[in-house]
């Protein structure tokens, strides 16, 4: 029997996984505003035989309390446009765009994806999100986001309606090569997992450890089976970032060097955004202003209280707390080591049933993607775990899914 194959997705939003990644000597911050950058990274992803490139998305600008950060990479250009432009200069790579069900009508998103699906020859995917950030609502004439359960109920209806529209567009022609985009989801909560189990053909998730990956994948597969779908028709793709080196020691030093590019001011901007409260006017040497944070945040207060409680108890200064918060991203697998060790880790996760593959989040762009494709991909290929040629030209073919599925939601 052939060894279990590893699927690869490239999550390429922004200029890298680390908030300080854009300052790295091998990052190209001006690149994200130019076509030649996207042509280069799309070619790299195809060279690495990735299934797909994925862009996350938000529908609000970065910042907190009306203040735009100065030290974080932004803004994010429209992912559907970036991915469709990349379709024009590639032949195989899948293109997965994040689009909200709360702030698009079924007609709007069905037309967008139908165009993307047709012009790319069957390489489109839709990462279905309901939009969770409270700052989004005022960009769409509303004061508050609808509550979460309502957003998910609405999402189910939007997906169902979009699928109907795609079926009609497919019949009217030109045909949609995959019938509709591949449906992708990233929900973590119970609502999100149930929605994914009913709807998604590929799922992202954070999984910091192999055990977390096994738990998530087992849970999702049983939820998928419980709604009468085949669990083997769903790819589970946890996020994976990495910093490589010629030795483990060198990788750790490289990681520290990236983190050290960030100063307190960047860390406080990052913390401000995460807590949804502008802290840039506070003294970094002073106490974490817990009361201000809880009074001003738009996010659920209980979650925010849990995040800042340890600092309040220990009396950690704001700058130090912010630096620690930024240097320890929760929930994500950040691998530090040699390319050989990374390939070992990836194979071990796959064989243990912790994933079907990985959603690579390069540390900085495009250098981090170049390193992975040049150093880790050839090892996975030599070990027979990563294809050396694409099996077809559609995203479904790359994912190993049936070529056309009955449209459902």
């Amino acid at each position, binding site marked *: 029997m052939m060894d279990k194959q590893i699927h690869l997705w490239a999550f390429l939003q922004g200029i890298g996984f680390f908030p300080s990644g854009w*300052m790295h000597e091998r990052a190209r911050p*001006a690149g994200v505003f130019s076509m030649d950058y996207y042509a280069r990274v799309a070619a790299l992803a195809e060279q690495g035989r990735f299934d797909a490139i994925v862009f996350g998305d938000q529908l609000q600008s970065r910042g907190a309390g009306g203040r735009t950060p*100065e030290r974080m990479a932004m803004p994010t250009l*429209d992912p559907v446009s970036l991915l469709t*432009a990349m379709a024009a200069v590639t032949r195989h790579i899948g293109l997965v765009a994040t689009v909200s069900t709360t702030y698009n009508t079924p007609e709007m998103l069905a*037309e967008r994806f139908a165009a993307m699906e047709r*012009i790319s020859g069957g390489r489109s995917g839709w990462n279905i999100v309901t939009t969770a950030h409270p700052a989004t609502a005022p960009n*769409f004439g509303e004061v508050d986001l609808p509550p979460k359960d309502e957003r998910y109920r609405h999402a189910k209806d939007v997906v169902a309606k979009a699928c109907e529209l795609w079926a009609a567009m497919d019949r009217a022609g*030109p045909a949609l090569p995959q019938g509709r985009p591949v449906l992708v989801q990233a929900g973590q909560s119970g609502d999100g997992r149930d929605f994914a189990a009913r709807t998604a053909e590929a799922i992202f998730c954070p999984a910091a450890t192999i055990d977390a990956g096994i738990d998530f994948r087992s849970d999702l597969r049983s939820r998928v089976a419980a709604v009468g779908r085949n669990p083997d028709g769903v790819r589970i793709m946890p996020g994976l970032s990495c910093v490589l080196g010629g030795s483990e020691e060198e990788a750790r030093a490289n990681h520290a060097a990236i983190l050290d590019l960030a100063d307190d001011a960047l860390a406080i901007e990052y913390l401000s955004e995460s807590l949804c409260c502008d802290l840039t006017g506070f003294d970094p040497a002073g106490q974490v202003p817990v009361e201000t944070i809880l009074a001003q945040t738009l996010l659920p207060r209980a979650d925010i209280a849990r995040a800042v409680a340890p600092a309040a108890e220990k009396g950690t200064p704001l700058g130090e707390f912010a630096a620690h918060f930024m240097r320890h991203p929760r929930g994500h697998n950040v691998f530090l080591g040699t390319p050989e060790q990374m390939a070992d880790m990836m194979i071990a996760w796959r064989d243990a049933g912790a994933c079907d593959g990985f959603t690579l989040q390069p540390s900085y762009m495009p250098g981090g993607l170049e390193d992975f494709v040049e150093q880790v991909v050839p090892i996975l290929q030599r070990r027979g775990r990563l294809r050396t040629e694409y099996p077809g030209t559609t995203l479904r073919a790359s994912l190993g899914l049936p070529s056309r599925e009955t449209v459902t939601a």
Partner: protein
Amino acid sequence: MTRPFILSASIGEAAFAQAHIAAPILRAAEAAGLDLMVMGRAGERPFDAQVLLAWAAPLTSRLGLVATVPASNAHPFHVARALSAVDFLSAGRTGWSVIPEGAPGGMAEDMVGAARALWDGWGSDTLILDKASGRYLDASKVRASNYEGPFFKVAGPVNAMRPPLGHPLLVVDGDAPIAVDDADIALFADGAPVPPATKRLLKIAPGADVAAIAARFEAGEIDGVHFTLTDALAQLPGIAARFAGLGSEQPAGDLRARLGLPIPATASNQPGGAVVPEFA
């Protein structure tokens, strides 16, 4: 000073949404010296033109790419972002034509106002991108638009940079006019009212009399012509042979510079588009 003679065409067949159809048409349009390709057109909604614009960007180098945007099936926050992205990917060759059909009266104009307000929320010189100082941008150049129109209320700032053109070219089609008095380009048919715009393009058939068109251009009555393509590959070479000679050499630069179209002062709080600093 010589005025550029502007050659424009629209394409609205659903088949254009496929790569093997669209790629040769885009090549033929560039070879024909077309200045503008309007994707989609009034009265038809064959594809999402904003998506096709993005696909066309890397496959063309000179052609202005104009998306027909139906006001009834779009939101200014999304449209502002999509056109910003395409304008960067095409290095300043983007336009849009908002079509009111199916939408309540005033919605198309509201769409224009809201998207312009979002683009104006970012200053031309917002980006710094300085690794040494750690400053990515100048926050004092970013502001919430707090746009409130009859249909759209959009707070902003939008998470998209001001486009390189500042605002993509606004094209108004006389067959589906909108009440905007500072558009960049108007498309109009002989005998029909001409929507107000900086440049006026006469809708004609590929077989129209070239000498008569040249005379009307010299007289300042029109700034160019617009064709409604029905069989693009067959029609474009003939259009090039007959009409490309009317154009004079255009100045270098983005689409606004080439066509002599500064952002209308009434439309923007800044005279130009975003500048991306390049560091070694």
